[in-house]
């Protein structure tokens, strides 16, 4: 073994690594398949052309989703580092983009854990249908004890306890490391998630009225294909669903052996994520069809997404359906599993960044990251105002955090550093399916343009009508100021010097100049 290879393997062993390509793929699928696959995709498809939505959706997957996924893979796999280290090794001045992504992940982890905690509670509630005959009133009133929008310090024990449980679980997984923690979690939970969701879908398909729901979801509206908004929705769905553009896939790819084919893995992850979305669409709309028929209303009356679908519509379905408790445990259990593997991936971006920067041991870095994240999570989201803060932060961090950093990153790499051909060469070193000029053009031109269109659309929507009808001060503090603070924090963090001995040279170029 050459000296260079020995050094590379020593660094790999120090940082941690996935033991095989299979584990990496499962971890990447675990990150991509999250709450959005279950509660966002079905409604987006239904709202944007039904069955005909599959055309823009596939176009978006192939022309933007998978190319961007491969971009993240190439960044992490070539530069062998967390998002900040990978950007620093690409070019010193771009390190701030990596920290911007780390800051976004920290923010997401704080509120994502709260949704997971709700799902944990509702998995248990499903057994005896604790929400009674009025799931809406139960969720907002009895469970969250939500008052008027604002910020309070009144803790809700029913939320606090599962939230503590979630953070303890996350802490244990992260302490176990890349392979024994993240890898093992994905290897166990992803097959479990697929089996549980398959049982749920089969059960939902057997409900009376399931066909009505599927009819609503899959009946094509071909004229919708002429609407630009439908195409923007398809690109937005693919972008938000694949966990791309904010450091996760860069971090995970850095834990993959150098000789592994990354393009093949990317295709599997991309299509696996979409396969789960289609499965979720069938399950959710079969259940909504049952609900519509049982209530004597149209599917459009009951179709919804997000928190409303999970914590209000589904409990109502569980109340009415024969074997409702089983449906509830499978549905909320799936949310917990899908959410946990995604939460773990988000927090790993932060831990990995801190470890690389300060040369910390895994245990120390885990404590440094998880302790404040858990504390902030408990302070803001276990209170009676948690739902409002969460809703605003989620809306703004997704649109004006992830989307903006993704566009800026890809534009900087493509047009300022002009590194796409270099990254393509790296992918092609071990790829059976080569990426070529088309990949470079797609990433350099198409992806920034379509994501900017989606961004402008989102920006226009919040300017046109303040989001959610919340007080303006809340939107300013937890929305606009928060997204600006995240970006500023990223570039401030980049000013902190690297520890002595950290090489900022490109590991793929053995004789390249060391910057530090």
């Amino acid at each position, binding site marked *: 073994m050459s000296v260079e290879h020995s050094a590379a*393997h020593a660094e*790999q*062993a120090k940082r*941690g*690594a*996935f*033991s*095989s*390509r299979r584990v990496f793929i499962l971890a990447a699928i675990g990150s991509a398949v999250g709450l959005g696959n279950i509660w966002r995709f079905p409604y987006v498809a239904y709202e944007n052309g*039904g*069955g*005909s939505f*599959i055309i823009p959706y*596939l176009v978006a997957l192939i022309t933007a989703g998978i190319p961007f996924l491969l971009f993240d893979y190439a960044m992490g796999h070539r530069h062998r580092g967390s998002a900040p280290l990978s950007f620093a090794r690409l070019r010193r001045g771009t390190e701030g983009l990596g920290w911007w992504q780390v800051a976004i992940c920290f923010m997401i982890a704080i509120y994502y854990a709260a949704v997971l905690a709700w799902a944990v509670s509702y998995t248990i509630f499903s057994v005896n249908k604790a929400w009674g005959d009025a799931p809406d009133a139960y969720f907002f009133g009895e469970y969250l004890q939500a008052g008027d929008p604002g910020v309070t310090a009144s803790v809700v024990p029913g939320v606090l306890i599962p939230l503590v449980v979630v953070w303890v679980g996350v802490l244990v997984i992260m302490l176990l490391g890349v*392979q024994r923690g993240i890898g093992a979690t994905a290897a166990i939970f992803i097959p479990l998630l697929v089996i549980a969701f398959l049982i749920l879908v089969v059960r939902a398909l057997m409900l009376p009225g399931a*066909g009505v729901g*599927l*009819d609503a*979801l*899959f*009946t*094509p509206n071909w004229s919708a294909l002429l609407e630009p908004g439908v195409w923007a929705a398809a690109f937005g769905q693919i972008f938000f669903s694949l966990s791309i553009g904010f450091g996760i896939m860069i971090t995970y790819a850095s834990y*993959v*052996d*150098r*000789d*592994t*084919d990354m393009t*093949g*893995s990317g*295709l*599997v992850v*991309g*299509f*696996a994520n*979409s*396969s789960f*979305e*289609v499965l979720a669409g*069938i399950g959710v709309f079969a259940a909504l069809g049952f609900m519509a028929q049982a209530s004597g209303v149209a599917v459009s009356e009951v179709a919804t997404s997000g928190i409303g679908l999970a914590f209000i519509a589904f409990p109502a379905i569980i109340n009415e359906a024969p074997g409702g408790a089983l449906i509830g445990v499978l549905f909320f259990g799936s949310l917990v599993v899908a959410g946990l593997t995604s939460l773990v991936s988000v927090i790993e971006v932060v831990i990995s960044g801190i470890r690389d920067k300060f040369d910390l041991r895994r245990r120390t870095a885990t404590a440094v990251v998880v302790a404040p994240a858990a504390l902030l999570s408990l302070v803001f989201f276990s209170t009676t105002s948690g739902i409002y803060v969460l809703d605003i932060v989620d809306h703004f961090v997704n649109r004006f955090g992830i989307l903006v950093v993704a566009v800026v990153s890809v534009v900087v790499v493509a047009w300022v550093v002009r590194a796409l051909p270099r990254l393509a060469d790296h992918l092609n070193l*071990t*790829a*059976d*399916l080569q990426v070529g000029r088309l990949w470079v053009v797609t990433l350099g031109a198409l992806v920034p343009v379509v994501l900017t269109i989606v961004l402008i659309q989102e920006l226009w929507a919040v300017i046109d009508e303040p989001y959610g009808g919340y007080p303006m001060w809340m939107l300013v503090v937890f929305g606009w100021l928060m997204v600006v603070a995240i970006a500023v924090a990223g570039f401030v963090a980049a000013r902190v010097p690297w520890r002595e001995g950290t090489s900022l040279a490109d590991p793929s170029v053995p004789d390249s100049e060391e910057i530090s």
Partner: protein
Amino acid sequence: MSTSAILMMIVAIIVVWGGLALAIVLMMRGRHPGDPTIHRDL
């Protein structure tokens, strides 16, 4: 369910799940499964 809805559901399943199956087959037949020595490094 209407015929067009059934047709589109089948098309969606075949294209997406078929794409996944094809991607897995292509990957399994690839020449770069990764270095097994990384396992020992851990």
